[in-house]
C-alpha cells in the first residue's frame, strides 16, 4: 500500500499554489490535512502528478468574526473549530459537529476547507455549509470569486470548483436573532461515517418556526437541503403533525442511496427519526 510516485511542492504563498494549480491543471492535488488524500494515494485511487502542499499557508488558518459573518480560513483544522470560543458562542452546532468528525488524531490534521473541497457526501462540513447558508471564496490565478454553498456541490466528490481553483475561505452569515439550531448523526461506532446526519436551523418567534433549513449528509451522492421538509416546518411550531409531514417529505427530498450496511429504506427511516429528534431540540 504505497503511493505511486508524484512530484511535491510546498507552496510558500497562495499565489504560488494557484500558479501551480494553473500549470498542472487537472493533474495536481492540493494537500492540506491529508486525511483523505493520503489514504487515497496509498490505495492508488488517486494518482496525481503533483501534490501542492498548502499546510504552511498560515494565512489560510484562521477563524475571524466580522460585523456580518464568521470567516473560517480553508486550512483551519477540525480541532481548531472544535476548540474555538467564537464558534461555540455563535454556532454551537459547528462545535458539536466538529467533535463528531472521525477521531482526535484526524481532527488535529484534517481541515474544514479540505473536507468541503473534497465534497465527500458522508462528511459533516459540506452539509453544514448548506444548513447555515454559507458561501465559499475560491481562488485561482484568474482571481477570486465567491459562490453560495447551495450551488457548490454537484455530486459524489464533485463541486463547482474549476480545475485551477482552490478553496480559500468559508463565510458563515451571523445568525439572526431567535435562531435555533441542532445537529445530530447516527453512527454505529463513535467516529464512523454517519448512516445519516443532519443540521437543522430555524428562526423562532414565539413558538413559530421560520427560515427553516435542514441539510442532510450520508444519505445521497451529495449533501442535500431537505426542501420539502423545510417548507413543511416553516410557519409551524414544530408540533407532531408538522414533524410527521416533514418526515413524509424526506422520501422525495433525500431519495437515499444504500451504503454497505443500510438499504435506502433504512436510511430514510433513520433520517426521519433523526429529523424528529433534531426538531425537538429546537425548542
Amino acid at each position, binding site marked *: *500500500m504505497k503511493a*505511486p510516485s508524484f512530484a511535491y511542492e510546498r507552496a510558500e504563498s497562495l499565489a504560488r499554489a494557484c500558479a501551480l494549480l494553473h500549470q498542472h491543471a487537472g493533474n495536481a492535488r492540493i494537500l492540506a490535512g491529508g486525511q483523505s488524500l493520503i489514504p487515497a494515494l496509498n490505495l492508488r485511487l488517486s494518482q496525481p502528478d503533483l501534490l501542492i502542499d498548502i499546510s504552511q499557508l498560515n494565512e489560510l488558518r484562521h477563524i475571524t468574526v466580522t460585523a456580518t459573518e464568521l470567516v473560517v480560513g480553508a486550512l483551519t483544522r477540525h480541532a481548531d473549530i472544535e476548540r474555538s470560543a467564537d464558534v461555540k458562542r455563535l454556532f454551537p452546532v459547528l462545535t458539536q459537529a466538529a467533535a463528531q468528525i472521525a477521531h482526535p488524531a484526524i481532527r488535529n490534521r484534517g481541515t474544514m476547507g479540505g473536507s468541503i473541497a473534497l465534497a465527500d457526501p458522508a462528511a459533516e462540513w459540506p452539509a453544514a455549509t448548506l444548513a447555515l447558508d454559507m458561501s465559499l471564496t475560491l481562488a485561482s490565478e484568474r482571481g477570486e470569486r465567491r459562490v453560495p454553498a447551495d450551488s457548490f456541490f454537484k455530486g459524489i466528490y464533485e463541486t463547482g470548483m474549476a480545475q485551477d481553483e482552490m478553496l480559500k475561505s468559508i463565510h458563515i452569515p451571523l445568525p439572526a436573532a431567535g435562531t435555533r439550531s441542532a445537529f445530530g448523526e*447516527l453512527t*454505529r*461506532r*463513535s467516529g464512523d461515517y454517519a448512516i445519516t446526519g443532519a443540521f437543522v436551523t430555524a428562526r423562532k418567534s414565539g413558538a413559530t418556526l421560520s427560515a427553516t433549513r435542514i441539510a442532510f449528509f450520508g444519505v445521497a451522492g451529495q449533501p442535500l437541503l431537505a426542501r420539502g421538509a423545510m417548507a413543511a416546518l416553516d410557519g409551524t411550531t414544530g408540533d407532531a403533525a408538522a414533524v410527521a409531514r416533514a418526515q413524509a417529505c424526506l422520501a422525495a427530498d433525500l431519495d437515499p442511496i444504500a451504503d454497505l450496511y443500510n438499504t435506502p*429504506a*433504512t436510511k430514510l427511516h*433513520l433520517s426521519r427519526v433523526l429529523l424528529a429528534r433534531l426538531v425537538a431540540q429546537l425548542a
Partner: protein
Amino acid sequence: MNAPVPGLKPTTYIGQDVPRPNAKRLLAGRGQYVDDIRLPRELHAAFVRSPHAHAKIVHLNLDAARKAKGVFWCGSGVDVARAVSPWVGVLTHFKGLKSAPQYAVALERATWQGEAVAVVVAQTRAQAEDAAQLVEVDYDPLPAVTNMETALDPATPVIHADLGDNLAFTRGVDTGGVQDVFAGAHLVVEDTFRFGRHTGVCLEPRAITADFNPSEQQLTVYLGNQAPHMMRDIFAKHLDLPESHVRVISRDVGGSFGIKVHVYPDEMAIAGIAKLLGRPIRYLADRLESFSTDIHAREHLVKAKLATDKDGRILAFELDDLTGIGPYSVYPRTSAVEGNQVVNLTGGPYDFKHYLANLKVVFQNKTPTCQYRAVGHPIAVAVTEGLVDLAAQKLRLDPAEFRRRNLIADDNYPYTSASGLKFEALSHHACLDKLLKLMDYKGLRAEQQALRAKGIHRGIGLAALIEVTNPSALFYGVGGARISAQDGCTLRLEPTGWVTALTGVTEQGQGTEGMIAQVVASAVGIPVEHVRVITGDTDVTPYGGGTWASRAAGIGGEAALMAGHTLKANILALAAAILTRDAAGLDLRAAQIVDAATGEVLLPLAEAARIGQYRPDTLPRAFQPELTVSRQYGQRDWPFVFTNGIQASYVEVDTDTGFVKLLKHWMVEDCGTIINPLLVDEQLRGGIAQGIGGALFEECLYDDTGQLLNATMADYLVPMAAEMPDMVIGHVCTPTKSSELGAKGAGEAGTAGAPAAVMNAINDALSTLSARVTEQPFTPERILRALGKV
C-alpha cells in the same frame, strides 16, 4: 524453646498481579517486529492478486514489470512452484475431509478475489507495487460459488472438478432415538441462526522476511507467527530442505488471535523466492491484503432445536450446521475444525442425553476460512444459549432459573457429554451463583421492569459456556499434523544467579513471557525480575507447539514449573556441596539458600552460581553441578482440559433506530489455577470485546460475484473502546489435576460467550415487542427489520 530465627518464608508469584516485563519495552516503541528487522541486500515483494473470485488465468505477461525501475525478479505461479511444492489441507482424523492441491501462487486459476497470481521483487516496496501494476493478466472469469446454501446444488459449478463436488467435509452425531424424544417432548423450540463471516484484525499485519544462504543451504525466516516450530517443519517440507536447515524466528508479534498459525500461500512464496534468489525477501501484507488473504471465520447457517420436559429440563438438542470455508481447506490445521467444534460444543454446559447433529462444510470462492480465536465456540454458544432463552421464555421460567435446572451439576464429574466430550471437573453452578450476585441479577431485573414502563427497552442476556483448552495430541497430532502437542522449557542458571528461560510457547502480546517468568521464579525461588524469558526462535527454544487453543499457560506453564523444580533441586544439591549440608534441609527463597526449617539465610544464590560456574574445583570430585535443565510436558489425561464460565450482558435497544447500547458486561469463569489475575482478566476482557465485535459490528461483506466489499478499516467495523461496556470479571477456581500447576486456558472464553450474551440481551429487550434477532452481526437495520420498522 527458642524463638524462631527471623528467616525467609517461601513465596510464590502464582496468583499475583505481576506487570508484564515486556510491556514497557513495547510501549516505548522498542519492540522488534518483523518489519523492524533489516537485513543487508534485502528485496521487497509485492503480489499481483486476482480481482476475480473465480477466473482462469489465460495469459500472464511479466515483460513490462520486469523492465520497471528497481525490479529484480518477477514470477508467475509456475516460477514459484519451482521452489515451493503444493500442499493439501487435510488430516486423517477428519474422515472424508477433502481439499485440492494449493500452490503458493495460483497456476492456471484464481479461486478467490485476492489470491496471488504473480509476484514482483524490487529494491523497494513502492517499486514492487509500481511494477505489479504493469503485470498484464488476461483472465477468463468463471462463475463464482459464493452462497454456501446453494454450493451443493447440482446447478452450482464445482470449484475443484477432481473432488467431484463442493462438499469438503461432513460429520454427524446421533445418540439414537432423538426424533422420538422430540416427538414426545413437552416443549420443542427451534430457530435459525446466521453468523457473519469475519476475520481477526491484527494490529501488526502478517509479515515475513525470508533469507536463504546458499553456501549453507540455510533458510532463516523472520515471521509474525504463533507456531514457529510448525512453520519450520512446513518450510522444510515444501522447500525441500532438511528441517535442521530452517530457522524460524518470531520475536515480537503484534496480535494473532489464531490468524498467524496457518500456512499462507504468499508467505510460502516469499520463502521459496528467497531460496531461488539467495537473498533476503521481505513482505508485509497491507491492510487490503490482510482483509482478503488473512483467514476468515464463522460463516455459518445453523438450524437447531431444543426439547424440554414440563419442568424445563433439557431432553435433546438437534443441530444442522452449514459452513462455507472458501476454495481450499487451510493447511495444515484444516478448515474442518470450526464446524467440528460447533458439533462438539453445542449444548456443552448442559446435562442432557440425546443429540442429533449434522455438519456440512462446503467450498466457495471466497477467502479461505480457518481457526480464529474461540474456534466454533461463539457459534455453538450462541445457538445453545439462544435456544435456552427461547425455551425459558416459552415455559415462563426465568432464564437464570432455567439454566440452574439444566447446567451439569458441580459434583457430577467426570462427565461425558452427549456429543462425547469428556469433562474433568467444571463449576457451572458456582459460576452462575457468583455471576448473579456480582451483577445483582434481581436488582437489574427490577430496574429493567421499571424502565420498560417508561418505554426504555433494556435487556439482560446470559450465556453459559465451555472452552477447549490444553489440548492433547488428539487435536492435531493423531490426524497426522506435525504440530507439537507438548512444549518444553529450558532453564539456564547464569553465573549471577539469574535464570534464563527458553520456552516453546510464544508471545503475541498476551503476556506469555510474563506468565512463564512468574512460574519459573516461583518454582526456583528467585525474584521474578531475575528471570529472562526467550521465546520464538526454533534454533534456540525447545521444540513445542507454540501458542494457540489456549494452551500456553496450561502446557508451557507446566513445563516451566517442572523445569523450575528440577533447577531448584540442582541448585540445592550444589549448595549442599558448597555448605557440606544435606540438600533435603535446604531451600531456595528470594534468591537465597536458606535453612528449610528456619528460613535462616545460608548462602546467596549468586554465590552458589558463581562457585558452580567458575570454581567447580572447590567442590567434591564426584559432584558435577547441573545448571541447565530442560523439561517437557504434554497433556495426556484428557483429549482437552475444558474450562467453563458464564457471561451476562446488559443492553439498551433504541427501538426507533435499532441501535444497541452496551451498558455493562459480566463474566465469571473457571480457568483453574490463575497464574496472573491481571493477565487473565485482560484476556477475558479482550476476548469479550472481540466477541462483541462479531455480535454487533464485524462482517466481511461480499457481493454475489465474490467481491469483498469492505476491505478497509473504515468499512469493516472492529469493536472500539468508545462502544465497549465496563466488564466485571469474577473467578471460580477448579485446578486441573492433569498438571501440578493446575492451570487451564483463558484465552478464548471471553470471545466464546460474548456474542450469545449480547444476542440474548437484545432479544430480552425486544421480547415485549414480539421481535427477535438471530442473524449476526445485529446491525441497526436487522433490528429495525425485526421490529417491522423497515
